[in-house]
């Protein structure tokens, strides 16, 4: 394992220190907690809190700021944060209008965030939550824990955050978040696994000729292993899965996110994007706005995911609304 780190036990903490030292104008750390909140706490609006394990940077601290999140809670690498940390975030950002928790659908995240919500409610804070589950690689059935929440979550932060900024009520912000969740789909692929610092070795092994399809964002193995293909073939496969699930119609408008997993250079993301756009053009689906870059990473994984979000007028307006955060500026 080769990394710029000092001590595997302390990466999360030192990273948070590094973020705050870099961007004091954006984020402030709650003393004694692994929680980043807006440096310009805004009163009179619904507050948004998200979080999860560390290792997904710029998620989630990088999206704290105007028009997106009010607080982000960072657990250990790939481990959802504990309830007391989330509770602290909720208390810090609540401005009396209630708090929306944006949770990615993982057993651990849900349990920890729900326990935090229980603690907050006991103190009289209004807390509701939404659970993102955009990953089409995983079948959603009664007999599973449902789909995972992956890169599409960033669109929930952006759009629900913009909605909250308008002064909308907790219910309205929640409804908008639910609308994004209902319309966003993602699928990912890895060429090389990632290494959790404390584990010291990669989460799975791939030969030079293999790729892993249907990966999540925690370095877990994916749903399928295949011989490596060209960028276009890979995109064709991912898009087929996404479009099949989404079944958009000719004339529909979408936002596209081609997300890097951490060790994938922009060059490759843009080559993937090229094919994504070709396919959408062939199908007569209009691309309203495209995002290419590292938004929801898996530490140092070489991989990518493609996200499509079907838009209506409300979502379009909110997507384009001002956002000023470390990792997302509009």
């Amino acid at each position: 394992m080769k990394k710029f780190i000092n001590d595997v036990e302390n990466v999360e903490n030192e990273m948070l220190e590094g973020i705050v030292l870099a961007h004091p104008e954006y984020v402030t750390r709650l003393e004694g907690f692994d929680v980043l909140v807006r440096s310009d706490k805004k009163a009179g609006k619904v507050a948004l809190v998200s979080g999860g394990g560390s290792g997904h940077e710029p998620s989630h601290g990088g999206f704290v700021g105007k028009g997106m999140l009010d607080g982000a809670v960072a657990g250990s690498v790939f481990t959802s944060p504990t309830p007391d940390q989330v509770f602290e975030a909720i208390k810090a950002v609540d401005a009396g209008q209630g708090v929306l928790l944006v949770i990615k659908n993982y057993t651990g995240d849900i349990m920890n965030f729900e326990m935090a919500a229980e603690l907050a409610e006991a103190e009289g804070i209004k807390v509701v939550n939404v659970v993102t589950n955009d990953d089409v690689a995983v079948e959603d059935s009664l007999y599973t824990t449902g789909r995972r929440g992956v890169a599409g979550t960033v669109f929930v932060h952006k759009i629900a955050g913009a909605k909250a900024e308008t002064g909308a009520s907790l219910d309205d912000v929640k409804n908008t978040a639910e609308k994004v969740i209902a319309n966003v789909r993602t699928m990912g692929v890895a060429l090389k696994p990632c290494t959790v610092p404390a584990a010291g070795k990669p989460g799975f092994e791939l030969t030079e000729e293999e790729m892993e399809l249907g990966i999540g964002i925690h370095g877990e193995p994916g749903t399928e292993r295949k011989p490596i293909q060209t960028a276009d073939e890979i995109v064709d496969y991912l898009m087929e899965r996404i479009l099949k699930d989404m079944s958009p119609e000719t004339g529909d408008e979408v936002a596209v996110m081609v997300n890097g997993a951490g060790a994938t250079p922009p060059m490759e993301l843009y080559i993937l994007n090229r094919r994504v756009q070709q396919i959408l053009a062939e199908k007569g689906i209009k691309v309203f706005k495209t995002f290419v870059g590292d938004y929801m990473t898996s530490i140092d994984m070489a991989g990518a995911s493609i996200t499509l979000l079907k838009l209506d007028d409300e979502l379009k307006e909110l997507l384009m609304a001002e956002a000023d955060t470390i990792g997302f500026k509009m």
Partner: protein
Amino acid sequence: MATKVEVLDFIRLFADKMTEHRQELTDLDQAIGDGDHGINMSRGMKAVIEKLPTFEEKGTDEILKSVGMTLVSTVGGASGPLYGTAFMKAGMVVKGKDELSEQDIINMFQEAIVGIQSRGKAVKGEKTMLDSIMPALDQIKASIEAGDSIEDAIVKGEQAAWDGVEFTKTIIATKGRASYLGERSIGHQDPGATSMAYLFQAAKEIAKK
């Protein structure tokens, strides 16, 4: 019968086991999860041992609840709330007691299971820690009914826990992170069921002393 000293010894021993098997549990979790179960459990139990001096003078019920709260606030992930709730619930059912009877011990495990199920919404056979704790408790109850001592019952219970761990290799995960693998999870042993079997191993070693 279990004394407070035995309960404290059991906690310390379980912590040792989590450190000792940190890598093994992590490797198991790398195969079908995100490779942090050993890291999570050892971090949590290390924190418990560090905090122990602040609550070891209290009653057995309070000790168990503090262990649970420490796990909840230091582990995170799925195992934090689950193990944490299990210990907290176990503490609550022996409220005010210092010496624990056979029935108390059974009630504790029973309540731990209720806690795990109410948090995690899983049932037996979904390739989770329930697949070792549930057969273990069933075996303990059966042994006691058949006239075994609690010590012998726990010895047999541990065996049942390991049988449950073996069983997890044969089934598809439908809860937790391993469920995303679908069919590919077959053949792999569940890390949470394994750490739970080590909990019974710790209990056995204390009981047999």
